[in-house]
């Protein structure tokens, strides 16, 4: 690769397409192939995690025990969370990063293509190992995605497998993050200065630094769990001088930035889509960049707001309360900017835009409940109730997942050269947007009335809203099958309408990938582009 003559380069351009046959997908180092792999894997895991969620909602449809044992129910809540976080949402954003970052900054590929391949397959190995714990003696881990000791130490044969799978997923994420940073720092087109990068690239750059900072900490924490269980250490065992609360501190030092790993690229994609359909430049580009950096920084100093009830000194509660409420400021800047971008724009409402607008509205709602829980004295009522479940699902499902859908609809025509079925896309949107609220909104009421999280059975006064929530869950779950149908149909030719290079009116003024032909050739930007779009900053 290192010494390519001009002629050689020329040859490569014409002849070197993807490898033939199935092996292409195993050995590929092409950022587009790996992006596709990540996205399909994430979509598959979205349905695996979704099925687990439906098992949970089926059991909670009525009070009393219907379908599963309490132990299995708790395994389902744990596995649903881990699969969705590490198997679906994070890989989906890495998929978008792989596809888009090189094209957006005018680079021919990721900086470290072979490591890129390795981090994908390590992810698959990690998730498979995690899934295998479902079939082990004693069942899959059943102590929440937080894996708190001492409960998690009672896991059966699955414990070391769950921990090693977390190690694998961590290594995979760290490698992916290193790759993204190296690509962004070293491979930008000459005119692409940092403050001219599309916002999706910016948010991923910051996310990658978050990952590098937190994944080793989480790996350390679960390793200590492992030694506590098998090597007689007492990191988290009070009897031996350790402290289980220490685990909570370490976990949430990882856990809080981790939830931002899932939301920052969401912000990035939203900031990419909204200007295109508002036919305006993004309002306040540099404030968006600084707000993202501010949110990332704050995420490291607010972790104990997840543990207001552990018995902290008053000064601790006050500090974490105020620090947490600070996050509302940069987030408010973002919401304001998206709204201001749409203000007096020539808006059209294609599927990606619909999902993005729903994201702005519903994420704000999830943000407000977050602000409520940031208040330490009030949090004692909300702690460990369905109110929390409603809150983080509002920030994850109609936010991250909706934006992933929006991104799918937005770039699919570019990637495949075919247009998706707009009518079906809109139907998918409306079904999702309505059912997601039927699913999660009643959980606020349940939580405020005192229904605890992670229980398979509940008192009868919670029956009605649980039933409503479960109905919403099934509508939402089955609506997502439409997405699979639409994606497959688009890949196979879509509506038959050939899309233009910029696909969306004026998109080429916003970002480099729309200046390429549709479908995107296997190799792009072998020579960096001369000029870069100027619309977005």
């Amino acid at each position, binding site marked *: 690769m*290192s010494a390519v003559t001009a002629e050689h380069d020329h040859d490569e351009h014409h002849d070197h397409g993807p490898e033939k046959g199935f092996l292409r997908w195993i050995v590929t180092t092409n950022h587009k192939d790996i992006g596709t792999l990540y996205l399909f894997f994430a979509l598959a895991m979205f349905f695996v995690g979704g099925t687990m969620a439906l098992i949970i909602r089926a059991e909670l449809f009525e009070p009393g025990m219907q379908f599963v044992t309490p132990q299995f129910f708790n395994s389902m809540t744990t596995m649903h969370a881990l699969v969705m976080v590490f198997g679906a949402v994070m890989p989906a954003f890495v998929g978008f990063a792989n596809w888009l970052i090189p094209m957006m900054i005018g680079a021919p590929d990721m900086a470290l293509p072979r490591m890129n391949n390795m981090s994908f397959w390590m992810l698959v190995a990690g998730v498979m190992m995690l899934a295998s714990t479902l079939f082990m003696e004693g069942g899959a881990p059943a102590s929440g995605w937080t894996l708190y000791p001492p409960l998690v130490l009672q896991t059966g044969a699955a414990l070391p497998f769950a921990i090693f799978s977390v190690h694998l997923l961590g290594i995979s994420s760290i490698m992916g993050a290193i790759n993204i940073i190296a690509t962004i720092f*070293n*491979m930008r087109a000459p005119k692409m200065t940092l403050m001219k990068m599309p916002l999706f690239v910016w948010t991923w750059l910051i996310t990658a630094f978050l990952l590098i900072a937190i*994944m*080793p*900490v989480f790996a350390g924490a679960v390793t200590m769990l492992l030694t506590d269980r098998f090597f007689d250490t007492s990191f988290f065992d*009070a*009897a*031996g001088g350790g402290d289980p609360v220490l685990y909570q501190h370490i976990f949430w030092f990882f856990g809080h930035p981790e939830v931002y790993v899932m939301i920052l690229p969401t912000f990035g994609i939203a900031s990419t889509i909204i200007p295109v359909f508002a036919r305006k430049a993004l309002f306040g580009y540099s404030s968006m960049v600084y707000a993202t950096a501010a949110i990332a920084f704050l995420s490291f100093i607010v972790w104990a707001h997840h543990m207001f009830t552990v018995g902290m000194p008053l000064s601790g509660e006050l500090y974490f309360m105020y620090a947490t409420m600070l996050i509302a400021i940069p987030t408010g800047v973002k919401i304001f900017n998206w709204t201001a971008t749409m203000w007096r724009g020539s808006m059209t409402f294609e599927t990606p835009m619909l999902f993005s607008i729903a994201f702005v509205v519903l994420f704000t709602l999830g943000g407000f409940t977050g602000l409520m829980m940031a208040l330490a004295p009030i949090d004692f009522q909300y702690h460990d109730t369905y109110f929390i479940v409603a809150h983080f699902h509002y920030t994850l499902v109609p936010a991250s997942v909706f934006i992933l859908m929006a991104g799918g609809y937005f770039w699919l025509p570019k990637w495949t050269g075919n247009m998706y079925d707009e009518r079906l896309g809109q139907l998918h949107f409306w079904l999702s947007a309505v059912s997601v609220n039927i699913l999660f909104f009643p959980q606020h009421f349940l939580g405020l009335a005192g229904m605890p999280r992670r229980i398979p059975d509940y008192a009868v006064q919670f029956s009605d809203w649980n039933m409503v929530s479960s109905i919403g869950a099934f509508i939402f779950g089955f609506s997502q099958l439409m997405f699979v149908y639409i994606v497959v149909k688009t890949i196979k030719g879509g509506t038959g309408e050939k899309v233009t290079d910029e696909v969306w009116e004026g998109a080429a003024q916003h970002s480099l990938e729309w200046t390429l032909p549709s479908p995107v050739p296997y190799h792009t930007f072998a020579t960096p582009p001369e000029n870069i779009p100027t619309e977005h900053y």
Partner: protein
Amino acid sequence: MSTDLERKNKKTVRILLVLVFLMFLFAAALIPLYDILCEITGINGKTKKDFSSLTYEVDLDRVVTLEFVTTVSAQTGLAFKADQYEIKLHPGEKVTARYTAKNRTNKRLIAKANPSFTPGITAGYVKNIECFCFSNQIFEPGETKHLEVQLMVSPDLAIGFKRISFGLTFFDITH
């Protein structure tokens, strides 16, 4: 890919790997840091040692009840109990609690007890003047030991606290 770019990429990767390693070390460093922080602030039931020269004026108007909790960690072959369930005392007054521990195995055991106070916030106000938990205890096979702890509750303890649990957990450090 030009060699120049490869060199730049390698440098970036090296720097980032160092960052990863440092964050891993940070996670490990949290363990001692947390202990130190707890000891300084007295949170979480951890106590500072050496109060031997400490004296208070006894506050005869108030009574605080100390409850004694004894635990033996999972693989420790000791039978361990407090000789009294509780002691009522005035803040500032010095009391002695007695314990009995018996080696149930036919091996020589070295064990250490760990103190803890509940509610955790009271830890800074209960002074452990003399405790067998300050040092390792050696048990010959089958040996029974009578152990003592001298305690004092500071009169600065807020009025609301009437009962404090004092827990001791023995664990085996023989190796």
